[in-house]
């Protein structure tokens, strides 16, 4: 066995992507992100296998595995399952030890987490079960607008005219976008309106955990890469928004950190 028994793994099975992080004494050894697809065990084996290959390690080198995310119970080889709420808070606390407020926007859900300075969860709130206010909303909208989802944020920053999308429901918003396109509305303006709509959802979520007045936001999840969302949240909340280098793997990182304790 290598790694002095200190290597742990965190696996986060999200609705859209599955992530694995291998953590050693000195920090992250490797990580991998893949589409979850329909076969969760296969996706987890792939991300873990790839992470191990990158770090030149084998399965036997791992001292403990914590799985998290909506598919957490489908992973046969994990030592324990812990919710994405606790894992996300642990990951953020590791990266930003003073943080007390996290917003995580994933593929099909978004959450706000209030924690104490020790990284313990104090309160959390999640979007209701529709996709409004999540990555899925932006993905569907980008498809309808025929813009790459990665570019949607930047496109929205080019907006010159303020318009409003009245539907936060993903399905209805889609048809609203189609009629806006038919009326020759600029796609930059539509993109900006979509971001406003998602932003107001997230703003409500943040308020529902009653954060400390001056707490800065750590934004995680795939959507954290979207610069327009970052700016929008800063404007709407009046709080500074910090984005980790790899916002998508923070929850898996937290799982790997907690695996040290399980172990």
């Amino acid at each position, binding site marked *: 066995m290598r790694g002095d028994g200190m290597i742990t793994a965190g696996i986060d099975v999200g609705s859209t992507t599955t992530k694995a992080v291998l953590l050693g004494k000195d920090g992250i050894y490797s990580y991998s992100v893949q589409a979850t697809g329909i076969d969760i065990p296969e996706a987890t084996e792939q991300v873990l296998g790839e992470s191990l290959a990158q770090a030149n390690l084998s399965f036997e080198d791992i001292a403990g595995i914590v799985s998290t995310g*909506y598919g957490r119970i489908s992973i046969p080889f994990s030592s324990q399952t*812990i*919710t*994405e*709420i*606790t894992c996300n808070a642990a990951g953020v606390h590791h990266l930003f030890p003073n943080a007390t407020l996290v917003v995580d926007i994933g593929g099909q*859900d978004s959450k706000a987490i209030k924690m104490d300075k020790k990284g*313990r*969860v*104090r*309160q*959390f*709130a*999640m979007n*209701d*079960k529709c996709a409004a206010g999540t990555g899925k909303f932006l993905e569907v909208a980008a498809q309808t607008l025929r813009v790459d989802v990665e570019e949607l944020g930047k496109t929205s920053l080019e907006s010159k005219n303020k318009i409003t999308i009245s539907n936060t429901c993903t399905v209805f918003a889609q048809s609203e976008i189609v009629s806006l396109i038919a009326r020759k509305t600029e796609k930059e303006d539509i993109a900006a309106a979509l971001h406003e709509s998602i932003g107001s959802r997230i703003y409500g979520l943040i308020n*529902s955990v*009653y954060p400390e007045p001056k707490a800065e936001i750590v934004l995680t999840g795939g959507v954290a890469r979207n610069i327009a969302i970052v700016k929008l949240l800063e404007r709407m909340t009046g709080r500074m928004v910090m984005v980790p280098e790899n916002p998508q793997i923070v929850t898996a990182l937290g799982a790997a950190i907690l695996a040290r304790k399980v172990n």
Partner: protein
Amino acid sequence: MGEIEWKVSPRLDSQKRLGKLINQHYNGARELEETRAQPVAWVSTMSPSEILWAMDFCVQYPEAYAATCGARHVAHAHCEITEMHGYERHLCTYCRNSLGSTLGVLEGQDIFEPLARPDFLLVTNNTCILITKWFEHLSYYWKIPMVSIDCPVLLSGVDEREIIDHVKDQCLDLIKLLEGFTGKKFDYDRFKEVAGNAKRSGDNYREMINTSKNVPVPATFFDIMGHNFPNLVLRHKPETAEHYELMNAELKQRIADRIVSMPDIKYRLYWDGIPYWVAIRELSEKLQSLGMCLVISSYFELFAFDRNDPFDPLEGVAANTALSYFSRSVDYKAKFTEQMFKDFKLDAGIFAYTIGCKSGSIGMHYISDYVNKKLGAPMTIIEGDLVDETFYNVERNNMKLQALAEMLEAKNK
């Protein structure tokens, strides 16, 4: 908590007696369909039913029926009937269940154990405003009279005496109207007798709730919740008080014999809101797997008719109706909940936001945050519906409950 020396026995003997009481009530009501020996009234939960019982009505509760339909997983079919008649999906699902089963019966469809056909409707708006509209539609479909009693919301600073008097006047109007409807003079002695039985039943009901202050609880929230039924539907009968007396004796005996109904209790929990009848099994299994024992809920207040008075029955029923827990301000509820946390030694709370019951859910954020700030108890808000399972996401709610257990664990480290 030292549960190790406690014996586990999930089933209460009182369940059998409860089953008998419920069956007798429904079978008796169904017989009336044939005999019409007594008039049948459909009534909303926090109404002065004592007046109807004193006039020898058989009283049935569409809300209780909806809960049963939810627990038996047949409510969704009733809800779909209302949708097919153009009612919208986000209406209260108790209401949809009731209108759907009514429309089904009237159209000759096969409906799950329907309530006996009503002759009269009595509704009180102390639970919410929608319920009056719901009963109005029942009145329209059944072509029968309806009386609505108005109870203003008890905002802080209101004069409770004035509100009780306001309800009392309406109770007198109701009595007059019922005299006309039945052709019988209102019997005040019978009213006193009914109020006396209801008081005895209510006192014993309160005692039953209070046994849950014991650590550990002799019976969980899930064991006790069904026993709300007699104090709602049958509190005018002496056998109901007897049922609670035996129940309380059983609970005390369990405490003396060191018997609990759930193993390995790590945390004592509060439930806010009407239960998700469609998901009772999922919830109880999940909570048990996490060592979380549901102890008590402010929901029980809806069935606690504490103010009945055989010496002044009109004052008693008016006060019960006017001062119901649902009519209280969110501020009152927050403080009341805080006190429950202290009295029942609770560690955490589950707030059950209900898609179909906005009025019962609207204050949840405020109350949970208030108690959390005051006592530091972790809370979670789950989402679902009382009777429509299509609004219930098992995986998501289980995740929230697990996160709550993790918060409790981290807090105690």
